């Protein structure tokens, strides 16, 4: 009798262990296209940052700068953030001087590259037009994803971007907090 009971216990334990591994396997594979790939995060932007004038309105600083080095990677509020040393080449809005720290939401975390949808991680040695907002506590300038890190490939593009965002700054639309409307 005792033998039959222990056999039953053994079978039950085996079934439970098998079910656990099947569930764990399904969790690992749940809605993932492939392991170790890019994980995109989907932001709800507070305003239409694809509009240059609105982007200029919400940015504290707009400038051309060259990425000199990656300084670090901090996981803030669950999302990895990457910090870069950027040499300011020309201010368009604001008055940054010399080397500043630019922070980008995104970076490597647990074998995956986390990025805001449509964005790419900054590359050392590349020049960008940056639109940023200041974080006084961290002493860094967080870029606006996608629209606030435009790669500058040559002088023609640089001059075009300077003209475009100088005009946008002149016509900036300051950010206003939304109030509920039945749109």
């Amino acid at each position, binding site marked *: 009798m005792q033998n039959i009971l222990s056999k039953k216990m053994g079978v039950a334990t085996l079934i439970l262990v098998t079910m656990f591994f099947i569930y764990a396997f399904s*969790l*690992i594979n*749940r*809605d*993932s*296209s492939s*392991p170790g*790939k890019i*994980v*995109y*995060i*989907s*932001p*709800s*932007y*507070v*305003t*239409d*940052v*694809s*509009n240059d004038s609105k982007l200029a309105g*919400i940015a504290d600083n707009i400038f051309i700068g060259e990425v000199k080095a990656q300084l670090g990677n901090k996981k803030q*509020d*669950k*999302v990895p953030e990457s910090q870069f040393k950027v040499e300011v080449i020309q201010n368009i809005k604001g008055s940054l001087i010399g080397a500043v720290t630019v*922070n980008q*939401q995104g970076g490597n975390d*647990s074998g*995956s590259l*986390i990025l805001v*949808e449509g964005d790419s991680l900054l590359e050392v040695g590349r020049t960008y037009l940056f639109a*940023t*907002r*200041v*974080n006084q506590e*961290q002493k*860094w*300038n*967080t870029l*606006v*994803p996608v629209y*606030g890190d435009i790669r500058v490939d040559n002088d023609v593009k640089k001059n075009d971007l300077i003209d475009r965002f100088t005009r946008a700054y002149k016509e900036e639309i300051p*950010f*206003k*907090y*939304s*109030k*509920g*409307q*039945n*749109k």
Partner: protein
Amino acid sequence: MDVSSSDLYSVDAGEIRWDGSNWYSSERTSAISSWNGLGTIYIGPDTVYTFEDLHFSDVNRSDLTWDGLYTNYPVLTDTIQVNNYYLDKYDTIVRTGVFTHELGHALSLADIYDPDYSIYGPWPSVMYGYTDARPNGITSSDIDNYEFKW
């Protein structure tokens, strides 16, 4: 053309079980109720008998230009973060809209960017990507996309 469906979502066996906390919990509850009103997918709190699919939390950051953020992790629990720096200055309707938008992602609905209204016309969808230019509740196009997916 289905422009507003994504393969990345938090639905697991026909439901989304959530945990976590938010300062604006009543707005979160309203947003969950409005999606649950569509019927197919149940969004409910995590229990000892379920596994957490989605975790809510708050941030308070003035240097970020988003008020809500959905992250779909391949293995870990997906997350919805709301940025109280902005939510504190919104009214209840807009705050509820932020939660409704992010829960739309958890239900597989993708962002819509249509700044000149050429695709959907004005104020087409709660999945519009910019808070200051979208409806704050579920619209008929959201229902169509939800029903197409589920």
